């Protein structure tokens, strides 16, 4: 009989090794799956995990995807540490995109350097507003934020569809569900010449730095941590739980909204249905895989972004369906959650009554 026994102290070595072990396990199990699907495992492995890093243009696309994932995941991780599970970043991202798009949609002729910063601010406000409902429901009505944030995302998708098929549809757009193309001044300036990477990547890294200072170095972050680990102790110490809930959800919504705004004002350049390819859900994986730690999340967002680009590569070169990337992402998180168990527990062989 094998039993789990709690370690006297958490294993630091395993805490660092867990994401790597999880990655290895996920790669192995998915390669088996791809072989079963009749794909060439070597070609898939190369396209999915190596090719994104092989060329500068490929890597710049990885950086482009890193921006939104990093921003959203940093916002979510703050809440996750306080045990506030905002899983509706997808909807907050969409609302950010919608709010930001309002400026170029209603003022398509406007010019000036103020436009793209104003769009980013609008987007962040939009994302935070979408998180007000779950925060209010949780604090005042005692409703589980997991369900409310998720349902707010499903509503956001419908709102986006309504705008794109109705009032915001480009009249010259051959009836496609998309807005007008934004004017030049509504686009975020390019950061790295010759690529699509724009200034919003810097914003994402600034957000990571702020999250690190807040979570690791400030009293406010400490209150969050205690609230998540020991809610009773937090209440005893007078740390307000409703304040932590409001802050978690508003920060998460703010960051996701900012990411949504940066997407429409960046690589996409208009509001359309495919503004989010599941960034809000992928960011949940990014946050956990980074150990809910601001520095870890930088690494995990790069990995997840590379998987997105690698997935596109593998679709072209190895005929792998796009859904395979989602399976890979899901199994990566499953493997990681299994691996981190052993940071705090160890397996012991015992004789006697089973648990």
């Amino acid at each position, binding site marked *: 009989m094998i039993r*789990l026994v*709690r370690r006297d102290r958490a294993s630091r070595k395993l805490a660092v090794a867990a994401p790597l072990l999880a990655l290895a396990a996920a790669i192995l199990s998915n390669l088996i799956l791809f072989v079963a699907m009749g794909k060439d495992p070597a070609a898939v492995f190369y396209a999915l995990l190596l090719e994104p890093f092989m060329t500068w243009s490929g890597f710049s696309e990885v950086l482009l995807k890193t921006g939104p994932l990093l921003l959203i995941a940093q916002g979510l991780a703050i809440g996750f540490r306080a045990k506030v*599970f905002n*899983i509706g970043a997808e909807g907050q991202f969409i609302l950010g995109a919608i709010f930001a798009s309002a400026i170029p949609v209603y003022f398509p002729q406007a010019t000036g350097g103020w436009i793209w910063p104003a769009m980013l601010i609008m987007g962040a406000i939009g994302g935070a507003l979408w998180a007000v*409902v779950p925060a209010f*429901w949780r604090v*005042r*009505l*005692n*409703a*589980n934020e*997991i*369900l*409310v944030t*998720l*349902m*707010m995302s*499903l*509503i956001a998708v*419908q*709102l986006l*569809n*309504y705008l794109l*098929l*109705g009032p915001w549809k480009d009249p010259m757009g051959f009836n496609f569900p998309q807005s007008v193309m934004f004017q030049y001044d509504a686009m975020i300036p390019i950061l790295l010449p010759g690529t699509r990477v724009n200034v919003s990547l810097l914003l994402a890294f600034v957000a990571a730095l702020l999250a690190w200072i807040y979570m690791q170095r400030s009293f406010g972050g400490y209150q969050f941590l205690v609230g998540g680990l020991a809610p009773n102790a937090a209440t005893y110490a007078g740390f307000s739980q409703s304040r932590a809930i409001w802050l978690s959800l508003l920060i998460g919504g703010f960051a996701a909204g900012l990411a949504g705004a940066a997407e429409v004002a960046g690589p996409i350049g208009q509001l359309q249905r495919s503004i989010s390819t599941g960034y809000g*859900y992928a960011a*949940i*994986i990014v946050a*956990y895989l980074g150990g809910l730690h601001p520095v870890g999340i930088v690494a995990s967002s790069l990995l997840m972004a590379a998987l997105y680009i690698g997935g596109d590569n593998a679709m072209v070169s190895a005929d792998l*369906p*796009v*859904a*395979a*990337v*989602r*399976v*890979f*992402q*899901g*199994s990566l*998180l*499953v493997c990681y*959650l*299994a691996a*981190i*168990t052993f940071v705090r*527990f160890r397996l012991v062989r015992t004789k006697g009554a*089973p*648990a």
Partner: protein
Amino acid sequence: MSGIEFILAGMLAAATPFLLAALGELVVERAGVLNLGLEGMMAFGAAIGFIVVYEGGGHFAAFVAAGFAGVGLALIFGGLAVGLRANQVAVGLAVGILGQGLSSLVGNSYESLTITGLPKLAFPGLSDLPVVGGLFVQDIIVWLSLIATALIWAMFRYSRLGLILRAIGENPAAARAIGYRVNALRLCAVMFGGAMAGFAGAYAATVYTPLWADGMIAGRGWIALALVVFGTWLTGRIFFGACLFGAVSLASLVAQTEGWAVPSQLLSSLPYIVAIVVLGIITSNKRLLKINGVASLGEPFGP
């Protein structure tokens, strides 16, 4: 056919995916485990069920296969959340994402294909009644779901098994102390929940809308999770909640036939809006939750 008749006739079939998934989740949560992977388990079951019917296996085999698909994901969930005592929220989300990915992957080459559903069986006599007659003309799965509802109600109300399940959810340490194998029982409950989620998905994809479209479960698993809370962990109330959501999800069809000028997107989001509002109303009544809630819900148990 008037709007009311239309809703009465279609409500039970529309409610069945919610009902089956929520009944499974009820058993899981009563045993003290929160399975947030429901949506993914339904999606995977739906894809597997559709493929079996499309490839000529028939509906019976489709439901069996979909049940096994759900159990397979439930074993991953249970292995981590119960066996390894991992965070149930995180594992649930992970298995949910995995299930939705697997659903898209296996369903990839079946996009937009159609199959035939199941015939409707009329309850003799009652089906001829005016207005409510439509309620009594349903396919076999709906009739079986009603029986399942009654069985689960009776299990929790009268049987020893129901009592044991409630005990391990309420106070696992005490249940362990009198000799029940808490984690083994929890794992069984999780597997049952997975099978029911698989059936629910199969019903949605092979009977209710016998057509494959990626993402067709469209949040039904999350509504089912909310239903368990609405029903305050009581079978009868969950049944009425499922009927309510079945009726609400027919609103867009009714609006079309009645010619209401409401944006279709508003009607499509109506179930989610209703869910948020009802959730707020029910959960703000803390006494109700305290009486009926599950004390150790979401907490891993280790001796």
